[in-house]
């Protein structure tokens, strides 16, 4: 879907350049020459941009200023743009008093591990299904894709009963990182992306390697993986962001407060902790994904087909 919406663009663009008013879309240059219309179009656009800016930055700013406010002032004057007395030590206090640093570490450990497992599963399975094409490949791929039809939320209860008594091992992995890492690997969309990516690599590459006596594992490590760095990076980043945001599964799998990630700990802390410190904790939880967004905003905004599809 992503590839197909992007692919025809250059062709269209090339054709556009040959015309005079060819860079047009809905509204043409001739339209804009009419002053009344130009004014109203610009007015609508300006208003919308202002509204979107308020809706986008406003809450983020409130979170930011709230993290440095006193709870009293926060409640008495919620519309203030900046507190009269700035409490810079809220962040440090949240870190020590609410143990935010501990929950943040949990979040990092779970998210990084989950992303790692997802990349490993996607690359190995995608390579096996796309390049090696075993006889049972069709069945396996079908069974993996079939899980796309059933979102994880509906097998939540059965998955919980599975992790408290893992079949074959008879151990309870609830309240351990494995409870987050291992189920994360069973993510059909990643396998789909990896397989489709390997499908685009020229088959001759692997056939030549095979004739030269390279084993499938060497083909994976020395040919496929170096070529698929962008794909692995995309899967890893999306998995990382997804695991960072996750709430329902860690809520179920991590009943021990000490093992909870930030997303699960914050609502629990919000019940009775100092509200300004909770806001500081919320800010801490928001900063890493915000930094990732600032660094990769072009890729994220352009490749949004991903996020739309993942949901």
């Amino acid at each position, binding site marked *: 879907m992503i590839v*197909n*919406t*992007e692919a025809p*663009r250059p062709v*269209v663009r090339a054709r556009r350049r040959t015309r005079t008013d060819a860079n047009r*879309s*809905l509204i043409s240059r001739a339209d804009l020459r009419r002053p009344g219309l130009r004014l109203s*179009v610009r007015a*609508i*656009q300006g208003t*919308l941009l202002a509204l*979107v800016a308020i*809706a*986008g*930055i406003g*809450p*983020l700013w*409130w979170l930011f200023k709230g993290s440095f406010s006193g709870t009293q002032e*926060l409640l*008495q004057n*919620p519309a203030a743009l900046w507190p009269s007395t700035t409490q810079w030590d809220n962040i440090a206090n949240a870190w020590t008093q609410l143990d935010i640093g501990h929950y943040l570490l949990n979040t990092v450990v779970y998210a990084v591990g989950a992303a790692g497992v997802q990349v490993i599963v996607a690359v*190995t399975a995608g390579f096996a299904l796309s390049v*090696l*094409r*075993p*006889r*049972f490949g069709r069945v396996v791929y079908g069974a993996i894709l079939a899980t796309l*039809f059933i979102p*994880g*939320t*509906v*097998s*939540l*209860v059965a*998955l919980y*009963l*599975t*992790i408290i008594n893992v*079949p*074959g091992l008879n151990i309870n992995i609830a309240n351990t990182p494995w409870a987050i890492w*291992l189920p994360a690997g*069973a993510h059909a969309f990643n396998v789909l992306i990896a397989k489709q990516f390997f499908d685009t690599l020229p*088959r001759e590459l692997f056939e030549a390697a095979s004739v030269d006596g390279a084993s*499938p594992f060497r083909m994976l490590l020395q040919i496929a993986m170096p070529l698929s760095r962008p794909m692995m990076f995309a899967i890893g980043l999306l998995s990382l962001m997804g695991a960072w*945001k996750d*709430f329902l599964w860690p809520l*179920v799998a991590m009943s021990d407060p000490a093992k909870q990630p*930030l997303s699960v700990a914050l*609502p629990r802390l*919000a019940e009775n902790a100092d509200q300004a410190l*909770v806001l500081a904790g*919320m800010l801490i*939880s*928001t900063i890493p*994904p*915000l930094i990732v967004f600032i660094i990769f905003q072009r890729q*994220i*905004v352009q490749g*949004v087909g991903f*996020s739309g599809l993942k949901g």
Partner: protein
Amino acid sequence: MTTSNDLVVEATAAASTTGSGPHDDGRVLEPRARRRLKHPGRWRRDLSALVLLLPALLLFGVFSWWPILRSLLLSVQYNNLVDAPTWVGLDNFANVFSDPILLTAVRNTLEFGALSVLFGFPIPLFLAIMMFELRRLGGIFRVLVYIPVIIPPVVSVLLWKFFYDPDNGLFNAALGAIGLGPFPWLQSTATALPSLVLLILWAGVGSTVLLFLAALSGVSPELYEAAETDGASIWQRIWHVTLPQLRGIMLILLLLQMIGTLQIFTEPYVMTDGGPENSTVTVLLLIYRAAFINGDFGYATALSVLLAAALAILSAIYLRLTRAWSTS
């Protein structure tokens, strides 16, 4: 597809020589056997593929396929995790259907869906159509509109809980300044659900707008050119050119929205816990409560199976549409 023929040839070659061992160097090789030595990879390759698929097979098996099957199993069992589970037929489903709160949850879900479509559809569409015309500021707009999507959902929900506070919240303070309110927001059965929808819309508008923008870049300028030459006004161009061209993505987003609506959990769980008076209870919240608060796994999985059926139908339609849309 071109290689599937080779595969068949290789497979038959391999199958027909399984009788003779691989190490019988002494004998003169039959043409078929020689071919097999030339392509010794078939079995080895299947074996390597199996090894490489092992992580996926294990994880999907234990954490996806088995829980899905087990949901079906649990839904017809009585299970309290202590005694051996007993077969109870459709009793769990009967319990679900005779529970009056199910009707409330379904009605709430429909209301969530209706409000999301009513507002969550035209607003991003209008935004995308107007903002696609922006040249220089387009990049800034895309970043701004996507910021709420970046904020972790739990943080958004907690933040809006602050905003919605009837006495000390930002919204009543701001609206009070222009003489409106105070509104009860989450405290009243009439406004709690719409308040949650407002938050969900805010959090999701960004990705919808970007998907619409991507689709808009696929609309050929020639169509607008032709419409303008025929004297179509801007509104007529939107109605007769833009909207028909976006039909595919609109259907897909509609289905995605329905799939998402059926699974609303975090917002009511954190903000209202389903209240006041069950006015924001959702199906997933009922499943969570049944399993993890009441310990009634039969009820919870029976409801899950019903939800899965609804979702599977919607997902199947969705996948069929995306395939049709991406190949067209």
